[in-house]
């Protein structure tokens, strides 16, 4: 059993190891056969080359802005709608919920062009609004939070109503704190999703100044001829490392969120 786990873990870890080790190898060593598993010496200049080949500074700033603001808006919308679907009675609630679930099941590529045309009509091409707003609604986040809120004890909320608390107060003081693990899970999923998004930022931005990190990696790959794989790997490390760190720091919350249902006493 453990042997199987080790094999499966190796399958997942190996590409990451190859990525990180290649990022500190000279190009010749990456290509060498038999494979050089351990770099002879650390070749940090790949990072400098990647940084010089493309404006990674502005890519970083854009990625951070889009990820932080995009995730914040997603969380506000997802939390509010999850609360509404859990606690508020309103007409056609079930139908609207099913429609939102439909959105969850629709691949992003289906809506790509219509979203682009709308953003274009609004003058949002190559702007932060264009990068952030079309992805701000999260049916997946709403669904997870709604499922979580359904498990919360109703008595607590009824007691709060009796004490005169309004919906906003109940949402902020009860529903959100009691759903903390799931809130963190949804936040992390959103952060990773927005940070890694490639196709939408590629389509909606036209100038280098507005590009995000995943699109920025394109700047390192040649159209024809020679690719400096050391620099490409170093650039990829710059894109992947923040998310790996976020995941390592927060993985217990993700697991707790998915194992779900925790009710605070």
């Amino acid at each position, binding site marked *: 059993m453990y042997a199987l786990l080790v094999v499966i873990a190796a399958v997942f870890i190996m590409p990451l190891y190859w990525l990180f080790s290649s990022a500190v190898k000279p*190009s*010749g060593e990456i*290509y*060498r*056969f*038999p494979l050089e598993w351990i770099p002879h010496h650390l070749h940090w200049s790949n990072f400098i080359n990647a940084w010089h*080949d*493309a404006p990674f500074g502005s890519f970083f700033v854009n990625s951070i802005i889009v990820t932080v603001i995009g995730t914040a808006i997603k969380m506000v919308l997802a939390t509010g709608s999850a609360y509404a679907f859990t606690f508020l009675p309103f007409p056609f609630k079930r139908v609207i919920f099913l429609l939102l679930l439909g959105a969850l099941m629709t*691949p992003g*590529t*289906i*809506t*790509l*062009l*219509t979203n*682009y*045309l709308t953003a*274009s*009509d609004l003058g949002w*091409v*190559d702007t932060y609004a264009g990068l952030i707003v079309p992805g701000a609604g999260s049916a997946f986040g709403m669904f997870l939070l709604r499922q979580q809120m359904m498990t919360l004890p109703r008595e607590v909320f009824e007691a709060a109503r009796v004490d005169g608390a309004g919906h906003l107060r109940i949402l902020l003081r009860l529903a959100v704190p009691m759903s903390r693990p799931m809130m963190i899970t949804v936040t992390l999923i959103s952060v990773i999703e927005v940070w890694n998004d490639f*196709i939408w930022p*590629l*389509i909606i931005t*036209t*100038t*280098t*100044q507005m590009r995000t990190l995943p*699109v920025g990696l*394109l*700047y*390192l*790959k*040649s*159209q*024809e*001829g*020679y*690719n400096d794989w050391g620099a490409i790997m170093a650039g990829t490390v710059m894109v992947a490392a923040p998310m790996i760190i976020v995941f390592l720091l927060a993985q217990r919350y993700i697991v707790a969120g998915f194992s779900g249902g925790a009710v605070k006493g």
Partner: protein
Amino acid sequence: MSGHVVPTISGTALSRRSLLGLAAAGALASPVLAACSRGGAGGGGFAQVDVKVPDAYRKRDQKVVLWTSWNGSAGKVLSGLVDKFNQSQNDIYAQAQFQGDYFSATSKVTAALRAKSVPDIMAFGQTAWQIFFLNETLEDLTSYADNAFRSSFYDNLFGAGLIKDKLYWISFARSTPIMYYNKDLFAQAGLPDRGPKSWTELREWGPALLKQKAAGKPVKVTELSGGDSWEFEASVWQFGGRISKGLDVTINQGGAVECADWMRKLIYDDKMAMLASEYGTNFNNGLVGAYMNSTGALAGTYEAAKFHVGVSELPTQVTRGVPTGGGGFSIFKGVPKERKEAAWEVIKFLSSPESAATWSLGTGYLPVVKAAVEQPSYKAALRKDPNRGVAIAQLAHTGNLDEVDAYVQNASPIIFGGLQKIYGDNRPAQGVLDDVADQLKAGEKKIKAQYDKLVGGEE
């Protein structure tokens, strides 16, 4: 959406089939259909994509946006040329905007066309612009190009953008495959200091090369690509075959089949060749004696290889065969007249002998105009490195890609998918190429009506 007609891109109706073909150029097939309910996108007067103009150029009458697929050092050379253009006059401000590789850029411009907001100049790969031509979105540039402009180009390269003698695409970043060989390895094996004159000669050199070792491993004679069809197309031509004649698919006939089987036997019977996972890597590491790759790979090969690199014209077999590759410029029909004229000024500047020389020397692409090689900088570079002259000498023998490869969407992945089965699984070529031909014919059916209307039977 009514019937089979969807809203237009440039004022002319597009069939659903052709629009799907257009969409297949990128990852936008479904969104294009999703957008069918939207109102017409034609009528000319396309807006310009976003451009941030530096203060120094704010007062200029015209702005020209050029969408490109060249980044890194090539992107820097192009930006330098565009800067020079901006400094050379006071009316037009031009800006090059990198939009990813040809595939990504094609997806982007498909969306941009639907939004009626487009770049003034679009750099298309040599198999990307044809589908936009079939959808009648490209400006006929014939009247823009005077005789001096036309005759300044190498005929083969200028001709690549002509359809029925009308000009839709201007060669800029063009390349051909050439033969690279490892001079040190050849010397050790007692071979002459030149590339093979024919594939048979390369095979005859095999036993001497196979005795050599690199990193303790016996070397191979050559490596073959399973990730592109370009080099294969070159060898098919050399074996007397074609991918297609006009739109008639011939990849499963004659020289094409012989070529694929000959290469397969070189791998499995002679043990002289290998299917490369990352094409060029084995050669750069000294594990392969000679192989075909783009002229554009020359600078990178110098950088990666730890041996003396030789370059020669492609080997022949039954005949010569040298397809061109790379990219060039088009302008969209729906762009307002004054923007088209400004865009043409930029294209003219980039096609001048000085610009073409700077671009070619900085990137490794071919010089597209004849006078480029007469520039002092180019003469000096040719004296210093004769390898640079090989592709230029070979230019007279180049030809445009076969029609099916140029017009049928995803033709290249279909072809190299077949090559992976032949070279990777040792499957006889005939059966595999029959399957490939069926797939290409299915793609050909999608464009045939529009092709017949606009291109006719002309080859």
